[in-house]
């Protein structure tokens, strides 16, 4: 059995008597994972994040981190945790370098580490500039650098790519994957973007309306999402529709050269393709239409 770095047992939180923001949420974040915490806005992601960091005092002692109750470890547990909550918490009147120096001082980290962290997030050239003049992406990267400075075992990141352009998103994604691979950092990252999570995470938890709807590996997620919908571009589509209809009853003609149909799963694609070619079809393209997206939408609504 894998060791869990974060574990919550029936985490419940309510601001007022009648409305539970979190209802019996049990999370298991295995060591070495990149855990994507997924949910629409207002589902309870930020509350969970604030509870996990102790910013919000918990109401039922449900959280344990590194195998110990969180409450008993505050605040020294942060020696091993880098956190980025409500991004980006930066001192705008200070330079990027001084922001890191401030964290270094608080965490008793040698100043020499600062340059390393700056290089890691590609901000070395802008270190002396005041953060006031940084772009959103640079601020986000600096905030991550601040979270990484102490080389923590665990990173808690709340919407780290929120508001970034696709390039920025990719940079951060690559950075996180690299950290996870090279340094074995466990990363807990929250997001409302399914695609982002799908691309980098090893584990996923999906929350909606304060309840955990799914938790598992990314593979389990794919399985759970069920049938695989494919888009087929081929010659004489209308003809092929009639031929396929007996075996695949939900085949539709999308346009003159394009069909849509459902297979049982991804694994059925190679055999299906082979069969089609053998029957003489002239296939231009076979594309998987993400069933996950629809499944996810269904789950959270």
């Amino acid at each position, binding site marked *: 059995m894998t060791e869990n770095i974060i574990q919550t047992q029936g985490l419940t939180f309510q601001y007022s008597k009648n409305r539970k923001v979190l209802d019996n949420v049990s999370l298991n974040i295995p060591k070495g994972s990149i855990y994507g915490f997924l949910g629409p806005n207002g589902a309870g992601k930020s509350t969970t994040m604030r509870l996990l960091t102790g*910013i919000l005092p918990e109401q039922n002692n449900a959280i344990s981190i590194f195998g110990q109750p969180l409450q008993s470890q505050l*605040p020294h547990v942060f020696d091993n945790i880098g956190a980025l909550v409500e991004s980006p918490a930066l001192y705008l009147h200070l330079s990027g370098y001084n922001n890191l120096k401030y964290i270094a*001082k608080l965490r008793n980290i040698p100043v020499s580490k600062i340059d390393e962290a700056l290089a890691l997030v590609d901000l070395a050239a802008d270190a002396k500039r005041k953060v006031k003049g940084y772009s959103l992406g640079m601020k986000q990267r600096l905030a991550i650098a601040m979270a990484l400075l102490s080389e923590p075992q665990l990173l808690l990141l709340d919407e780290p790519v929120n508001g970034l352009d696709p390039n920025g998103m990719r940079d951060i994604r690559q950075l996180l994957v690299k950290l996870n691979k090279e340094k074995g950092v466990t990363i807990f990252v929250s997001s409302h973007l399914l695609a982002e999570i799908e691309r980098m995470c090893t584990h996923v938890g999906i929350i909606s309306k304060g309840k955990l709807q799914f938790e598992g590996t990314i593979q389990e997620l794919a399985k759970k999402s069920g049938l695989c919908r494919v888009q087929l571009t081929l010659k004489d589509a209308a003809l092929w529709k009639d031929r396929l209809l007996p075996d695949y009853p939900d085949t539709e003609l999308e346009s003159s050269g394009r069909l849509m149909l459902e297979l049982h799963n991804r694994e059925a694609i190679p055999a299906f393709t082979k069969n089609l070619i053998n029957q003489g079809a002239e296939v231009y393209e076979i594309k998987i239409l993400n069933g996950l997206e629809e499944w996810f939408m269904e789950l959270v609504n």
Partner: protein
Amino acid sequence: MQNFTTALKAEHIKKSGTGIYVLSVLMGIAIPIIYAIVLLVQSEPASPADIVPYNYFNRVLDDVLEAFATFFFPLLIIITVSRITQLDHRNGGWQLMETQPVTKASIYFSKFTVLLISNTIAILSFILMAYICSGLLFSIVDLPKAATFSFEFGFVTQLFFRLFLAALVITALQYLISVLIPSFVWSILTGFVLLITYLFLYGFNVVPDWYPIRFLGSVAKHIKGSDLGYWLTYSEIAALLITLIIVYIGFNWYRHKSVKQAFFTKKRLAALACVLLVIALPLAWLLMPKTMDAYSKTIVSGTIDTKDNVRNIYILGFFIDDTIAAIPIVNNAFHYEIKQDIPADIYRLILDEANVGNVFFGKNDSINIAFKKNKAALDGKITGTRLAESQYKDENKRSYSSVSYYLQENIYIDNVDFITEQITNEWKEKMEESSKFKTADNHVPRPDFVQSNKKAVTITYLNYWQDFLKKRRAMFPGKATKESADIAYMKSTVPLDDDSMLSNEDYFKYVKVSYIENNKADIDESTKALKAIAALKPGTFKDKMLYWQLKTSVKDASAKSQRDNLIATYAPQFGNAKYQKLITGIGKTLSNLDKGMVAPAIAATTLSREPFALENFKGKYIAIDVWATWCAPCREESPYFDKLAIKYKNQPVQFVALSTDRRIDDWFVDATQKSKSVLQVHADNEKVFSNDYNVEFIPRFILIDKEGKIVNSKMPRPSDATFEQVLRQQLNLGDEK
């Protein structure tokens, strides 16, 4: 602890570039610099009068302290607290800090410490700049010789700590608000409201003891600190205790994020109750006004810090100047036990010949007086069991009254309602003031003093009412003046037969008027009063009333016969022979000064240090100008006197200027520069001379004839043409054409 120092160092990285400490320095030095500039621009030459030696640096500190302590310093605190907390509110810093391995205590108190450092910097800059500016002024501005300049380390250190402690309350309070409320508007707004409300309350003298800025105001008001020798006053200790409460609440509120979480779980509620109880009890005790306990004996003691030669100190009763005690001064100190049973009252202090002030005390009081004396200048500080009473009297010596002004100028005499309201309101205000007074150590006057003081205040205002009635009768004879319920109440609190109050002349006046106001006979007021007093039943009250009135009547009598008649009629009315003797004595002194009587001898010394005597001028008239260097009206009259001396140089008349200065040195410098036509002399014994010639006020002018007999012992002033007319008449010169 290590966690805290780490957090504190990190705070300093965070605040770099914000100029927070620079602002502390600027706010500290602003007032001393402004003060120095103003003083340089409107620099005045030093007054030539004697002064008690003082440290100029301390004087400047005193001058600038209030503006710093009650405005610039709190303003700085309000701004700095807001800036320090906004650094984190604006940038999401609170959450960032809470996700670092630092305790919430370190976070909260490291920021608070930055504020305390800022306060320290401001106070030190203030003191240092006051030192620099006063040093500069000391070398540039014209100051009296007695002014010195030194840095009294003990005093300055004490002042620093007192300011530091006094500033804690407003700092902690603003910090609490600023941490909890992310918007800077609220903290700034509450800060300014506190500041402005203070100025407002201060104007009305109703600042409560616990008001956050009052602690600073108290340091400014009592710059010298405790009168009882404590290093801190009750106000600073109260500030510290209140700060502990605020910090406890502020920190727990911050730590647990909500009031409910912080204080309303069972355990935390108990903790809060404990803290409040432990702090509130001593706090309540501290803030409760105290009175001094009576002593087992009646003691008068003290010291005199002077280079002058001092011999005796006398304590006189106020009413008839009877000597209660004559105390020898040994090695500039005195100590005396009064064995007789003296009533609590105001007594007069005489140092050798000079009147040096009044003191309120009575049986079983121990009074200590620390005098500082430099020639004519004298400063006395009274401590002991009547400390609060003495300070109250000092502080309320000069108080403005608009009613008194209206009556003097005959304004609004037609408006009964308005004057009645003014009298009532002012009276109420003064009555309240007298119960509000506190010393630096939270002592209040004892009830006996408060009672007698309240009576005195009431009498003052009843006298205004009586004056008003009198003016109404004269100006609007036909119109009635209705007495309001308040006036009636005031009257009901003052009995008309309290002889313990008769040392107060106002009370005598009040009682007198009540005797004569309904007497419509066509005789003068004094006669009416005497008749009424004579009709009283015998006793001390009658004796005292009669003494007041008879003394005035005798002195005012225009002729010897009238005077003798008064004494013959009323002196036997006294029950106590003491008063009879005193009145007879006054009558005799006055008789000696009647026209044609041989002028009492005058012992004096000339500028060439030779003895002066009236006999030396037999065959010549002698015109005497009695004056002193400190007497401004005397200086106004002198030129007229000099002019006449020159004009009548060739006539058989000697003009003499007789100085009653206590110190011959003072006179010498002035007199050598005066007209040579006037003989300048200095009275050897001012007290004897004043007694013999019944001198109550100067300037006083006396004319003596060729045989050494009095022509007029109370001549008109030489600025008045009558003076010259009388002189010409005596010299048989006839009227000038």
